[in-house]
């Protein structure tokens, strides 16, 4: 008799729990993502704001672009994020749709006593020469010629690069390859490369610590990192031949001047884009989602998040020194969603 009561009670509790769980699931479809560490700070802020607005929460694992690609290919997350855009065949093989989500900039930083932000001008030949180890001293004739009027010391150049595999390194080495034929032939572009010279620091913080400790150092970090830590950045010559300072407007110009429509799958590295204001080492983070979605509600939820972020999250991005995508590009991306992302019955998921 008593055991029957217990059993009934147990069933009732279980049933109630199931109802609660189901109600929770129906209320908001939570989404998961993994990949790029570069995009993590802004993704976290966007997620926080979007949760307040829609009730959808995002669980983003900032595990690195490579790991993010692996996870979306395996289907363990709803989207992946990578700093290095995938090739068409890689996308096709795993049925992935790719689009950019946010833009950032990479800047060369130096430690030279008496030298301030933007005092030193560099171009592709000299920056490449420095990182190749062929330009060894700050008073090298090539540097003196580019910087008339600047008192360059005879200190040896101490090159600092990232030691960990990184999208920042990919975009930086891609830029060097685009502007320096020697670099392209000897080193090339990848998330980790065979550095001809210098020491490696772990992460942006490792690079900036090493640069700050040794006078005569030169390195590269994300713009947000350089500004927050008051590191001395240089000017760079862009594709149109102008020397520009790293500014949000310069990154935005690079993104706006880039011809996104000309490349399939948005497979565009923003290095060395045309335009007189464009900052030459601009980089985008790309989102990867599956082209065929079995769970339509979840797919809608993922795209809804990016729709909201790209159209309403600009201020959040700018506060963190990221550059939001130009409006024209956002419209293009949403058209791509409609044409390329389908639910299992073949109907477009978006809008």
């Amino acid at each position, binding site marked *: 008799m008593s055991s029957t009561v217990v059993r009934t009670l147990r069933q009732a509790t279980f049933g109630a729990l199931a109802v609660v769980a189901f109600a929770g699931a129906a209320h908001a479809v939570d989404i998961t993502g993994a990949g790029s560490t570069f995009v993590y700070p802004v993704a976290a802020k966007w997620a926080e704001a979007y949760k307040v607005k829609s009730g959808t929460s995002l669980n983003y694992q900032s*595990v*690195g*672009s*490579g*790991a993010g*690609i*692996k996870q979306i290919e395996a289907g363990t997350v709803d989207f992946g994020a990578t700093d290095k855009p995938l090739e068409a065949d890689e996308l096709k093989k795993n049925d992935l749709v790719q689009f950019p989500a946010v833009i950032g900039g990479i800047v060369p930083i130096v430690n030279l006593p008496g030298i301030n932000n933007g005092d030193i001008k560099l171009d592709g030949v000299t920056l490449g020469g420095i990182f190749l180890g062929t330009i060894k001293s700050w008073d090298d004739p090539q540097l003196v010629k580019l910087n008339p009027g600047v008192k360059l010391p005879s200190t*040896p150049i*101490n090159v600092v690069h990232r*030691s*960990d*595999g*990184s*999208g920042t390194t990919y975009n930086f080495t891609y830029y060097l390859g685009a502007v320096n034929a020697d670099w392209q032939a000897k*080193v*090339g*572009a*990848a*998330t*980790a*490369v*065979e*550095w001809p010279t*210098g*020491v*490696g*620091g*772990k992460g942006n913080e*490792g690079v900036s*610590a*090493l640069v700050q*400790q*040794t006078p005569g150092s030169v390195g590269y970090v994300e713009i947000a990192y350089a500004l927050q830590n008051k590191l001395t950045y240089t000017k760079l010559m862009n594709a149109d031949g102008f020397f520009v300072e790293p500014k949000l407007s310069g990154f935005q110009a690079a993104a706006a001047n880039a011809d996104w429509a000309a490349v399939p799958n948005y497979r565009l590295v923003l290095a060395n884009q045309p335009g007189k204001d464009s900052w030459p080492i601009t980089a985008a983070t790309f989102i990867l989602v599956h082209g065929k979605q079995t769970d339509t509600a979840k797919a809608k939820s993922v795209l809804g998040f990016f729709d909201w972020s790209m159209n309403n999250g600009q201020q959040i991005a700018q506060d963190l020194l990221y550059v939001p995508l130009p409006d024209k590009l956002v419209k293009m991306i949403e058209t791509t969603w409609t044409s390329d992302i389908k639910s299992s019955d073949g109907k477009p998921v978006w809008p």
Partner: protein
Amino acid sequence: MTNMAATATQPALNRTYPGRFGNIVFGGAAWTFAILVLILLAGVMISLVIGAIPAFKQFGLQYIWTEAWNPVKERYGALAPLYGTLVTSFIAMVIGVPTSLGIAIFLTELCPNYLKRPISTAIELLAAVPSIIYGMWGLFVLAPLMQKYIEPAIISTLGNVPGIGAAFQGPPYGIGLFTAGVILSAMVLPYMVSIMRDVFETVPPQLRESAYGLGATTWEVVRSVVLPYSRVGVIGAFMLALGRALGETMAVTFVVGNSYHIATSLLAPGSTISASLANEFAEADGMQLAALLANGFLLFALTFTVIGFARVMLMQLEKKYG
């Protein structure tokens, strides 16, 4: 019905063989846990080998003595990180062994009682500091000191000695194999000291006192009584420390300089196996991942050799002295 029967017989069983059931469970659990260690070890080994096979297939055995690390052209070799692993551990032992011996002897033979506890506690606390903290301290505090004072001093003195001078030349980077070795020595020190202190204390007081009674100095007692009596434990302590130094990752990654070139100078930046893994694992795929796993396998083999070597040495010592 059946349930009731089972519950009825169980107490009777327990009464007849008190504790027997518990004994079986306990024995089984202990066996399972012990076997689990072997399974775990074999599992790690097998998955490392499987992951590393593409790298060894592509580059052959010469992978081990090739100096190359080029993810763009997919050419890899383990020599530079292997060399860095051995050199940093060697520097750590060169600094750590005499220091820890000195501390352990001081604590057991010379230390006034009021100092014993503070020093012992400090040593134990050193062991409790997470390695990432050592790494950050190394990068932000030790590296600038090395660069400004210690390395220039070494370069201007030892750097001029013919022969070994080449190992102490070049610009003072502040980070590099030498700095990594120094950090490692601080990290392995507490292990060596606490083990050695414990084994020194196992020396019977009669032996020690009779040596002092014969007029031996402290040095003579340590050399002729304490060390011979405790040599097995002391060597064990060194090997444990060496094993730790070979595998230490985070602290080394911060200060080793992470360069895949082998330089003649110990002050130059280098790399170690565990640092290469920590740096590149997250972004690696394809052949790079295979090469990293191959490095992991080599580190495994290296540590295994060190432990095996220590065992053989201890066995021979025991044979020799009984």
